């Protein structure tokens, strides 16, 4: 019936199992996290929306300096949404394995599936929040529609890629050492102001530009802004830095993941 043994593992078959497992984990995760009370799983994107609205309001009220004549609402939306995207993924994956150790008894569920489900959920939540707010703000005429939609999407996906790769590596490492959990919080707080969410690279002095451009997320955020505002954004980014960086980070994270999944001891 369920898990008929196969003479040969066929890729399509395995893929189907994996997708089914990730799907089941996704629904389980949503239920565990948001339950069926009040708005239920809608918290998935309502929560980041509230965050973004709050920050947008705050920055508008204080008329934060951001070194350009871009509308502050649009600036805050693009900036803070990307922070939520790359920062929540590792936050959710750290400790995820420990919390789900009993699931390891089901042979179809692999360590990577647990991370995949959480990453998809985080990506979904952040994206729905970003898109809904953008549509809302555009409709309210607080900002204009994106200059180049595909560029926004590409930048957004590159940030997500970075976040996902980092999350998987840190998540797996956190199974080996508790310090990861402790250090991630201060690290992510410090990275936030440096991530390009609250400044435009072009507005920085030359030496500062050189420093912040070492941080891969800055490139992604700049790309999203260019997609939104076109040449007005004076975006500075380099895909030949960001993409190889993401690739190497992904490989390293997958190696750690493999190392951990060979050593995981279910409860």
């Amino acid at each position: 019936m369920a898990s008929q043994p196969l003479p040969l593992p066929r890729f399509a078959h395995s893929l189907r199992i994996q997708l089914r497992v990730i799907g089941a984990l996704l629904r389980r995760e949503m239920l565990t996290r948001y339950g069926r009370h009040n708005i239920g799983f809608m918290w998935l994107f309502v929560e980041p929306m509230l965050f973004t609205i709050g920050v947008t309001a705050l920055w508008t009220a204080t008329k934060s300096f951001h070194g350009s004549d871009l509308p502050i609402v649009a600036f805050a939306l693009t900036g803070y949404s990307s922070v939520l995207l790359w920062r929540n993924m590792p936050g959710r994956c750290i400790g995820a394995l420990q919390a789900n150790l009993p699931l390891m008894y089901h042979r179809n569920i692999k360590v990577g599936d647990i991370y995949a489900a959480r990453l998809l959920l985080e990506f979904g939540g952040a994206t729905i929040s970003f898109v809904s707010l953008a549509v809302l703000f555009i409709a309210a005429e607080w900002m204009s529609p994106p200059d180049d939609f595909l560029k926004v999407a590409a930048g957004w996906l590159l940030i997500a890629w970075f976040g996902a790769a980092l999350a998987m590596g840190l998540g797996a490492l956190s199974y080996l050492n508790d310090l990861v959990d402790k250090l991630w919080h201060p690290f992510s707080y410090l990275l936030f102001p440096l991530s390009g969410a609250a400044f435009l690279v072009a507005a920085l002095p030359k030496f500062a530009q050189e420093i912040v451009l070492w941080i891969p997320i800055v490139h992604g955020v700049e790309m999203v802004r260019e997609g939104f505002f076109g040449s007005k954004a004076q975006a500075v980014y380099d895909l030949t830095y960001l993409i190889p960086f993401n690739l190497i980070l992904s490989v390293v994270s997958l190696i750690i993941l493999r190392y951990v999944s060979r050593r995981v001891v279910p409860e």
Partner: protein
Amino acid sequence: MIEVRDLRKVYPTRFGENVVLDGISFDLGKGEKLGILGRNGAGKSTMIRLISGAERPTSGSVRSSMSVSWPLAFGGAFQPNLTGLDNIRFISRIYDQDIESNLQFVDDFAELGPYLGEEVRTYSSGMRARLAFAISMIIEFDCFLIDEIGAVGDARFHDRCNRELFRKRGDRAMIIISHDASYIRDHCTRFAVLHGGKLEQFGDFDRAYGDFRAKIGLDAQDRFDPRELADNRQQLIETTHTIAMLDDAFRTAVQAGDWKRDDGQWDAAEKEYLGALALYPYQRSYWVQAAHAAKEMGEDVRAEIAYRTAIALGEAYGDVREHLEFVVQRQGDKLAQFPAHLYSSCAAQNAAPAAPDIEMFARAFWRGSTIDDTAMLALLREHATCDGALAVMLNDSRFDPRNTQPPQRRRSPASRIANLVTIACPHLSPSEKETLAASPALLAAPWRAIIAAGGFADWDALGQIPAEAA
């Protein structure tokens, strides 16, 4: 077919490597049922996890052409803050099963009624067990891994589980580990003993169990550890029950006793029980079993000694009374003449004496170190307190303050004169007790060592010692 080859599992620990499984190989064909015996911590559960694929071996391989279950009756299969229904849905999705029919099955089988819609964390442990078992049954596997299933639920549920597993799924392969050796005996076709990381296989249960007991016996010859000493006699009695049941040597002996009792081999059963009680003489409930066996053989003196001991150690008098009365009457006496002395939680000297107390006093203080059953029974009948019994024993001609003990060889608490330290010297600190229990002086002349340490201080018996002995 499951092929296990050279399975090794090593866990790194702070003290170096812990080799749990050290090269295990076996095959399990369709429909075969393998029962695994092994002491606590022998690695049985680790082996099950490796076979289930939940954990990977350090080296070696598990190859399977059958679908293999997760370890059954394992409650962790579900998420506590989801409802029972959501948990069933999740498992159904993972294994690609029809959700509606599974919900129906679990509802019928687990009998949780409306609780199925409640979060699992609000369930009692019995409800969890019912849900866990029902969920395990919705997926059809070729091979079931069963880890300690005997421990869950009430008798009726247990019956239904057995029907579901062994009758409806009698054609499946199984690997069973259980503390309840009867369960393994009754349900398996092949047996194996896991010990020291190695697996030895047997075609017949009795040989497997014999081998298991022999292996436990070898380990049991550890030196006695004086740090295990209880603070006083009450504590000794109160903790013995739990400690004894955690000891494989004790458990296998009483298990063997139970089987022989069920076969009507009273003599052999009594020997097994008394062998177990030699390890933990203050374990009250098996004194009752030993007494029943002696009663069946018409050994009324031994039976009465054992019943009185059980009562003195706190077995419920109401449960034992009619049996005690029966053996007393068969000896031509009346219970009213020799009332039972019940357990009370008080200092040793005021507590009702039990056979292990008398036996230990005789061993330590009497020339020849033994006491016969008639004398033992007389003491238990006559005296309501240990103090009274000791006073009589000290005034016996066999009392010898210079009596010595043979060197302690086996880990047999009865032969441990050390319990004497617990009973006579509750006033000593744990470290003083430890020193005294381990001292050669205690073996050379127990009476002198105990008196020198201030033992029996509040006992009236001490003031009644004949002049020549004092």
